[in-house]
């Protein structure tokens, strides 16, 4: 059973660049890196991913880091695939030696352009990633390049 589960999985990595689109006026830009595994389930590919992000501030001494977990849906067999994901991030922002930590609920809306070669899937992704603490919304627009391998 575990073997079946394993061989029906795809694993991969994503990396990209983003900029604030809503709120976060003290942030300049950021980079993200994610590891994921996905599996086709009923009607869509379900993706579980973990990742980290690093955002630099307009103040060179300011930065914001994130560490998160996402659960997403996509259609990896389509050339143009919508992407929906949600999850949670542990966030840390620092200015010199001062820091604040917190959590945020994350939601992602995006588009994958899937290119396939045998078991390998290469895709650029364009996305909006929203963060909320249920009082305020902020968000980033960004692009990622991902590569997945079907085990």
């Amino acid at each position: 059973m575990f073997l079946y589960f394993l061989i029906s999985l795809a694993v991969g990595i994503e990396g990209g660049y983003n900029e604030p689109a809503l709120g976060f006026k003290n942030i300049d830009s950021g980079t993200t890196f994610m590891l994921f595994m996905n599996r086709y389930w009923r009607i869509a590919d379900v993706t579980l991913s973990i990742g980290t992000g690093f955002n630099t501030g307009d103040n060179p001494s300011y930065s914001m880091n994130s560490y998160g977990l996402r659960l997403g849906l996509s259609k990896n067999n389509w050339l143009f695939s919508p992407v929906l994901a949600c999850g949670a991030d542990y966030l840390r922002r620092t200015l010199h030696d001062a820091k604040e930590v917190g959590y945020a609920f994350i939601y992602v809306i995006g588009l994958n352009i899937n290119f396939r070669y045998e078991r390998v899937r290469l895709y650029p992704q364009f996305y909006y990633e929203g963060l909320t603490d249920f009082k305020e919304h902020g968000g980033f627009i960004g692009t990622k390049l991902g590569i997945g391998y079907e085990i």
Partner: protein
Amino acid sequence: MEQNWGLVMKYRFLLVLVLFLFCSNENFVQRASRDYFLFEEGNWWRYASGDDTMLVEVEPADTILQTECFPVSFGGYTRYLAESHTAIIEYINVLYNFAGDDYTIIDDFVMRIELPLVDGNNWEDSLVGSLEVAGQLIQAKYHVRGVVTGFTHDDNFDGDVYTIELSSVERVILLDTTMLDSSYVVEHYAPDIGLVLFDNEVGEYILIDYEVQ
């Protein structure tokens, strides 16, 4: 097999739900994304301290030393403030009066509050200047020190309110004398409102009314 996969999915959704609930007590995004300083022409705040009231009003923008700044009237006393990506800066003009004439010893901007606001951050900045007046060297030093001492959630302002302690010292040094002027103020800033309370040598002023764009 499908049943096992469904079970796995159920636990994943439960995990997300738990994280969702966990996040609901946090205001991190609010603190990181909202504006605590609203220097826009026409914005005003009214404060009360006992029977005394004070109106703080942002006047039309002005340019000093090639820097666009906003004259902010604190009950008639005008301070020139500007916001950059890294700080709230204030125009400092230290004068020395000799024989009825004012001589400018310091004419520059100092970092009043470093941005963005982060709990525990502290900063300092200083200005120095000197001028020879009637054969006597006059020196002046202006030093400001600030620290974000914390934040607390305040339902009245629908957000986390930061507390900042600011102290400044102005020294004018003559050959045989030093003139000293120091100040200490504790300021509280709320998101999308601005200064909601300040406590200085005169007293504690609490926001009673405001209008911001």
